[in-house]
């Protein structure tokens, strides 16, 4: 003990104590509250799932949405938003939000599906709301593509572009591209209207219509570009930009290259030719 007390005035003592304290706090967090510490919830009862979800909620979501899901100035109340909303926001990585801005953006999702299901079950237990769709609801149906196209053009193209490439909204907000979005997430987005997207609830857009729209998006995503490179499938804008920048630059360089290469003979060759001529004349 004496040894320790003599060392406490060492210049590095404060750093050593701080490092130890941080390591201890980190270990405690990893052991008790981090998402990866509680992945063993598969196959449990609904009550246990909700209990597990509540723990995860408190550790991952409560700082913005409040300890009792009542909402704070940083995030809205989640009561009544339903499990579909939780699954959409978390499985696309939008929640927990990394930073505030014009729009919360998608990012890699650090949670396991079981953990998201637990939190979803917890939020669902509080006030109901749209539930996570079953796999059969968002399974693509090749016979529904034509109807899906009509519905997609009526409801979705204004923001998400005619081939689902996304587009800009006001003040830095944007409609994200649908080219990578999982069918279940497309379904949940229509059902819950995340951020500035309008809600397309089942009464105004039936589950069958939603399935048709998903079928169309997936069919369109997988369809080839018969005309050549898609160039982002943005139509004449990107095609014109390509022509006026890349192709025009190539043509200009070609013109410069032609003019820069002389066809004139070098003085040496002229002299050689003159010598050969005089030789042959002799």
């Amino acid at each position, binding site marked *: 003990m004496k040894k320790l007390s003599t060392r406490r005035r060492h210049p590095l003592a404060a750093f050593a104590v701080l490092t130890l304290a941080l390591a201890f706090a980190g270990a405690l967090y990893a052991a008790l509250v981090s998402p990866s510490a509680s992945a063993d919830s598969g196959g449990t009862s609904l009550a246990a799932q909700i209990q597990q979800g509540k723990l995860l909620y408190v550790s991952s979501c409560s700082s913005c949405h409040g300890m009792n899901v009542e909402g704070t100035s940083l995030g809205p109340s989640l009561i009544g938003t339903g499990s579909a909303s939780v699954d959409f926001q978390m499985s696309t990585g939008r929640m927990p939000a990394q930073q505030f801005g014009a729009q919360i953006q998608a990012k890699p999702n650090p949670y396991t599906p079981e953990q998201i299901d637990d939190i979803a079950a917890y939020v669902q237990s509080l006030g109901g709301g749209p539930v996570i769709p079953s796999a059969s609801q968002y399974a693509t149906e090749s016979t529904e593509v*034509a*109807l899906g196209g*009509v*519905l997609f053009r*009526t*409801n979705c193209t*204004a*923001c998400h572009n005619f081939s689902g490439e996304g*587009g800009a*909204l*006001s003040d830095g*907000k944007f*409609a994200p591209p649908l080219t990578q979005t999982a069918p279940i997430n497309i379904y949940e987005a229509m059902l819950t*209207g995340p*951020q*500035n*997207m*309008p*809600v*397309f*609830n089942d*009464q*105004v*857009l*039936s589950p069958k*219509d939603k399935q048709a729209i998903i079928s169309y998006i997936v069919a369109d995503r997988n369809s*080839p*570009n*018969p*005309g*050549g*490179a*898609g160039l982002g499938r943005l139509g004449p804008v990107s095609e014109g930009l390509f022509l006026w920048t890349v192709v025009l630059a190539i043509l200009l360089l070609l013109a410069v290259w*032609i003019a820069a290469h002389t*066809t*004139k*003979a070098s003085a040496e*060759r*002229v002299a050689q*030719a003159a010598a050969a001529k005089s030789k042959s004349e002799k």
Partner: protein
Amino acid sequence: MSDEMKHSDELAHSGHGDDHGHGAVALHDDPFADPGLPEHHVRLTDIDEKAAKRAERQVAILFAISALSAIGFCVAYTEIPINKIYDFFPLGQVGASNLVLGALLGLSLFSMGAGAVYWARTLMTDVEFPQERHHLESDPVTKAEAIAEFQQGVADSGFTSRPLIRRTLIGAMAVLPLPALWILRDLGPLPQQALRSTAWTAGELIINDNTVSLDGTTGQGIKPADITIGSLVSARPQAALSAGDDFNDMMIKSAILLVRMDPADIHSQQERDWGVDGIVAFSKICTHVGCPVSLYEQQTHHMLCPCHQSTFDLTNDGRVIFGPAARSLPQLPITVNSDGYLVAVSDFTVPVGPSFWERG
């Protein structure tokens, strides 16, 4: 300056060139003298017959490539199935027919042009020579002859001596452009009052676009409870289901959007009164140039037009808050009928869509 003059100038200069030292200051050079042509350099193909032969062959090869590509185009057009899809790196999945046709036609045109350029640069003569302009003015004899001929023609035709013919001809030519003006005046029936009214009338059922069958003849109405807060529904009048050939003419004016907001979010009392429990109906036709507005931000209640980003505030009578649109988005007054479905109270109270000349 003609050649003769130039030569005489040069002679004069060279003649006085030896007179230095006599006190007179001779102009050494005419500052405006024609600098003449630069020294001619010969090309390799001019002095080396082998090089010339090689260039000739290269031009011929380019022309042959052009011809072969054009023939290849014809073959590809008939031989490659139009629906054949290949994975071309780095383009991805593309139609083989389109790609090959474009590449071959491009190669054909490019080889033709490249051959012509190469021919001109290597083999066509590149000796510079001046080509003098001739005088534009005719000599006096020719001018006098032409004037005499013209006057003889005028006299022979009787144009001056027979004023009746002259005047009727001038009159007829003045009337001749009239048919062009006449048909321009009447390029179809005038719109009359058609731009001022739409298919919406009192009690007209609002049909949810999403429930309309693919043939457009059946569809279902909407009940207020169907629409949750934050929803956006495109809708049409029931009359559109039986419009037949008039469908486009009808929908271009009558397409609407329904949104539901918290009534407390709506700033305008009239807008609240024209809606049902926060459900409000607005024209879908932008007041700028008539694009369908349907970019709805459900948190800000801004409705954007995809064409020119006109932005309408749906909490405040559809007022323009950004963009080129000059007028608010017209609101359709709606209510609930005895069956519980949403219906129009009346037509729009102002003309929908872009402004027009006689709108007032």
